[in-house]
């Protein structure tokens, strides 16, 4: 579904990603872990299409198409979803109205009729129950006055409503307490299916306890230096990122 080949990316003249290769197939859950500054957010940003980031080399193919040629809104319409690490507050824009607009723009892109009001409300109700988000949050402006946990749950709720083919969760677990983490993870798990792929970008092991990824990749200094299964995440938890760095220097030497 997603094919990242030799991606090099920089921001403000600084080279962050130095050759990333990654293949993600439908139904798979990939975790990308790495120390601070390794390029995790940069990877999420270039996949989502942030203009400040420049891809200097390499390609990204999504569902057979050249993703880098697409605008952020077209990537979303094709089926990409990014759950932000720091979701922004947008006062004055109602959450419900926003999701309805997003949903209908996607449907229009795929030649479908917009959802009528009744069907939309039904869908909302279904997904609200699925991700355990309170109705009161949705009558307000986007993320306005939401706690960290509520913002993250709102991201997963949007993911449930938009039904993406590929979801990228950018440090979704940051800033969450144990209960909030469990609720968010449950929501994500309920959204797993054979058609959908998920890339979980995270620092810590704990979200992966719930999500049980198929593959774990370790990003250090802009490169994926090691890939493995979920056992790798446990090893990292135990030994820290230094063990990988040591392993690399041993190999180099």
């Amino acid at each position, binding site marked *: 579904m997603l094919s990242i080949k030799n991606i090099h990316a920089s921001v403000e003249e600084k080279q962050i990603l130095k050759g990333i290769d990654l293949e993600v197939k439908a139904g798979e859950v990939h975790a990308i872990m790495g120390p601070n500054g390794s390029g995790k957010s940069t990877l999420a940003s270039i996949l989502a299409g942030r203009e400040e980031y420049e891809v200097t080399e390499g390609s990204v193919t999504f569902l057979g198409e050249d993703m880098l040629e697409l605008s952020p809104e077209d990537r979303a*319409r094709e089926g990409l979803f990014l759950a932000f690490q720091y979701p*922004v507050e947008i*006062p*004055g824009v109602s959450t419900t109205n926003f999701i309805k607009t*997003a949903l209908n723009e996607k449907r229009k892109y795929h030649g479908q009729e917009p959802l009528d009001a009744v069907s939309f409300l039904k869908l909302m109700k279904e997904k609200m129950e699925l991700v355990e988000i309170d109705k009161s949050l949705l009558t307000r402006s986007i993320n306005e006055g939401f706690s960290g946990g509520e913002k993250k749950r709102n991201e997963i709720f949007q993911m449930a409503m938009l039904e993406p083919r590929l979801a990228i969760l950018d440090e979704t677990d940051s800033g969450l307490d144990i209960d909030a983490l469990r609720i968010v993870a449950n929501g994500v798990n309920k959204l797993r299916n054979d058609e959908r792929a998920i890339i979980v970008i995270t620092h810590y092991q704990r979200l992966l306890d719930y999500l049980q990824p198929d593959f774990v990749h370790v990003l250090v200094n802009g490169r994926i230096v090691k890939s493995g299964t979920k056992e790798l995440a446990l090893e990292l938890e135990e030994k820290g990122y230094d063990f990988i760095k040591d392993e690399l220097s041993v190999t180099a030497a």
Partner: protein
Amino acid sequence: METINTGYLCDKFNKLQSTSSEGLISNLRAEGFKIFNRNGLPSIRNEEWKYTSISNLFKKEYHLVEDDKKNWITAKDIDAFRLPGFENANELIFVNGKFAPELSTILSSETDIIISPLEEAASGKFKELVNEHLDKSSQVVKDGIQALNTSFIYGGVFIYVNKNKAVEHPVYLYHVADARENHTLAQPRSLVYAETNSKLQLIESFITVGSMDSFTNGVMEIVADTDSLVEYYKIQNDGANASQVGTTHIRQIGKCYVHAVTISLNGGMIRNNVNLIMEAERNEAHLYGLYLLKGHTHVDNHTMVDNTKPNCFSNEFYKGILDDSSAGIFNGKIFVRPDAQKTNAYQSNKNLLLSDNATVNTKPQLEIFADDVKCSHGCTIGQLDEEALFYLRTRGISKDHAQSMLLSAFAADIVEQIKPEPLRKYVEELIVERLAVN
């Protein structure tokens, strides 16, 4: 013709005075014309008019209502611009500045509200009231353009709300300028008196018929007595050939509540003066404004809140969205006189610039002479939140649509201050249309 031409106005003035040389109004005209001759039209060297060169609009000769032998605006013309909610409104039509009772519709009974030509009120049973209150604004507004309106008081309207009456039907004032054959100068004059414990909603809108230029130089004086509630709405959505200077001078002579909203969407060169004179203790006033401009529209909003007595509260919130080569100006004056202890006065002006050629000039001006007060002011000029735009786009919303959603959200704060529902919805729709993605 490149020079400012106002000589012909002298002939017009003399002609007008010759028709009625006695009485209050005639005297006021004479005084006004003296001031006009002495001060002339304000030029850009006048600090108050630094950014708004209305004198340039007087390089052409205008046709005045006094020249009209017949009123060419018909009831059918009016249907084209009635505002939503008109079925429930008292509709006052002004043609080229002159109140046209024959085209107007008064639904309220005289026990609630009296609406009469100003000349009649000045010599009839309201003679004393009119004598006392008409043209008080000229003691404060001393420039030539105000004086020009005063020089030509003719066909004005007097609106009087009786004690304890909440007027059920809003009063819509439609200012129609007939610019089909000539450049037209319309100078409406209104005096509004809201008695003790009365409630009134006033709405002013402006329509120019025809493609010659129109200039509306209007003065509305509102006197609000104890416990009254006055709502004032001005909606400016006329053509690029329509310029105006509008002074709304409100005196709160007893403890009462004023709520004023100015919405400017389209026009040529516009200057709005909203003055709030708090002549009693514990007055409260809320002034709101939204200017959503495109093309070459120029809107200059000057406000003045004068706290002359203690314990008054005022809140001003103006927002601007400027595109193309439009220009916005905001100057908010707050005076706190030595006796006005415990004044609470707040002012905020926020602007979004959408293009390289749009400009905004914003200046708070606080002159505080009492020492126990709470006053604040703030202004911002910026662009749309890039992070918010990106967020919306990552959900599949196009860049244009996302921009439009954020602009609507920005404007919503002010639009929701329009209390009459049909009007609020009307303005919301105008804004949605304006911000719509092409």
